[in-house]
């Protein structure tokens, strides 16, 4: 009896991510959701610019690779052209919450029926560890070498809280992948974000609080601890909006 296997919606290509990086877990959760909903053959993914740029090699579905921050606009074009397809974006914090803020907010405002997987690890990973829109106050990065000084460069972007006030957003949940319990919750949220699209519910975004051991300068295990101690107080986990819950309670 097979008790554990690779999801069908992942290819056999070896992931390029650093040791201890949580992208691998998140890729797996996305692929499992696609498998469980039986939508692999009609799913189209949009890869970002950043660490997950080569997601098109890892997901065994049709993929587009978008310019930095533009994945929700590309996904909008795909979904509007062919509403029968399941379209998701997979974006990091720099991509989604800095250069692509407008595309994020307005695709939510349009209640674009797409699924957005937003990986928040509080740093630009691919370019070598610069300050991100989600870098915490005081956090040291290559471009905030004395710690993020909020008086000079402002405060981190809380994406779920921001989108909570956008009428069009249908489902927003922040999850983390630092322990088994949280991974299980993340799995459930990602599955729901895809199912929402199948059901025509509209814009669903899952923010996944995750680690970047390499650029945080921590071992993978210590990074998980740092996430728990520093990121979760600033980025509380939970459901920020769920229009399906309202319908259920009516």
């Amino acid at each position: 009896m097979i008790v554990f296997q690779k999801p069908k919606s992942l290819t056999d290509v070896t992931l390029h991510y650093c040791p201890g990086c949580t992208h691998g877990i998140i890729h797996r959760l996305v692929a499992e959701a696609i498998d469980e909903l039986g939508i692999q053959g009609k799913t189209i993914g949009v890869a970002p610019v950043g660490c997950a740029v080569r997601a098109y090699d890892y997901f065994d579905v049709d993929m587009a690779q978008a310019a930095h921050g533009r994945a929700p606009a590309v996904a909008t074009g795909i979904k509007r052209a062919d509403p029968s397809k399941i379209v998701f974006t997979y974006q990091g914090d720099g991509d989604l919450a800095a250069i692509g803020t407008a595309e994020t907010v307005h695709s939510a405002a349009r209640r674009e029926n797409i699924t957005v997987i937003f990986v928040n690890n509080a740093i630009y990973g691919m370019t070598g560890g610069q300050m991100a829109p989600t870098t915490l106050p005081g956090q040291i990065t290559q471009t905030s070498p004395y710690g993020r000084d909020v008086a000079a460069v402002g405060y981190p972007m809380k994406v779920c809280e921001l989108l909570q006030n956008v009428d069009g957003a249908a489902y927003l949940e922040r999850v983390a992948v630092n322990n088994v319990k949280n991974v299980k919750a993340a799995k459930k949220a990602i599955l729901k974000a895809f199912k929402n699209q199948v059901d025509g519910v509209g814009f669903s975004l899952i923010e996944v609080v995750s680690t970047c051991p390499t650029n945080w300068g921590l071992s993978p295990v210590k990074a998980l601890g740092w996430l728990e101690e520093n990121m979760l107080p600033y980025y509380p986990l939970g459901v920020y909006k769920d229009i399906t819950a309202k319908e259920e309670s009516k």
Partner: protein
Amino acid sequence: MTEPVLMKGNEAIAEAAILAGCRHYLGYPITPQTEIAAYMAKRMPKVDGVFLQAESEIAAINMVIGVASTGRRVMTSSSSPGVSLKSEGISYLAGCDLPALIVNVQRGGPGLGGIQPSQSDYFQALKGGSHGDYRNIVLAPASVQEMAALTVKGFDLADKYRMVAMILADGTLGQMMEPVSISEPEAASTEKPWALTGTDCKRAPNIVNSLYLEPDALERTNIERFKKYALVEENEVMYEEYLMDDAELCLVSFGITSRIAKNAIVAAREMGIKAGMIRPITLWPFPKTALLAAADQCRAFISVELNMGQMIEDVELAIRCKKPVFLCNRTGGMIPTPEDVLAKIKEVNKIGGAQA
């Protein structure tokens, strides 16, 4: 629609696009091309198409990328400052080998410039307005009828070569009304096996991508793409020759200024000056061969354009500087009168240029 009707140039582009099978228009308002969006907003819902006003030019061009990725005909339109914003996406369209039609109804620049007609985006359209090695097919209509015809042609060329076709018009052509007859073109069926349609779990995934981290792979891809561009240059050059049989002075002009130049040429001939014109209809590919041939026949060239002298560089290159090339121009939204062009023809005629 075959009976001639009176239409604005912008509307003719929109209607021709729908007749060409375009069912997806993504855009953002900017003068002087907004009639295209307004027309599409009205018409698209009637033909089960998609009109979407994006939050920015940048979003609009990336939505175009999304639609094009699925293999459907798609267009956007803008005017000069808006096309600058779209430039990032134009480079990605090139890098991903995606077909799309982009309309630039030019206005004066740089910066916010003005809203009056201009041809000052010639360099931007032709000389790599965005990053990387790439080309756009650039079509230059000179009448409302051509706005329609070249829109249809643009979609066909974009699909055939998997690249961007750009209509480089100007505010005058966009806003003026002329009789136009648009007939339903023959359905051009281009197979698009590369499109993102979902694998149906029956084939390997299709990937629309412009990233090549290995330099040798990127070099190979670029070289392959330029073989395609070479085919376009070989097969798709379009131009009009006007009174060139015995011409000694050759005017070169595209778009709205070519019509002013025609008036001036007629007036010059009445005075005994043998002037003619080569009007590029495709700015890229540029009618280099026709111009080089004219260099053996003519004493001098006059480039008539609405900018500080942009196409004139391509004229000089095309004729390999065999004969002098003079500039007759207005800029900033100003348009020369036929008398202005005639005065330049007389001046050049007097100087004489090189002997043929």
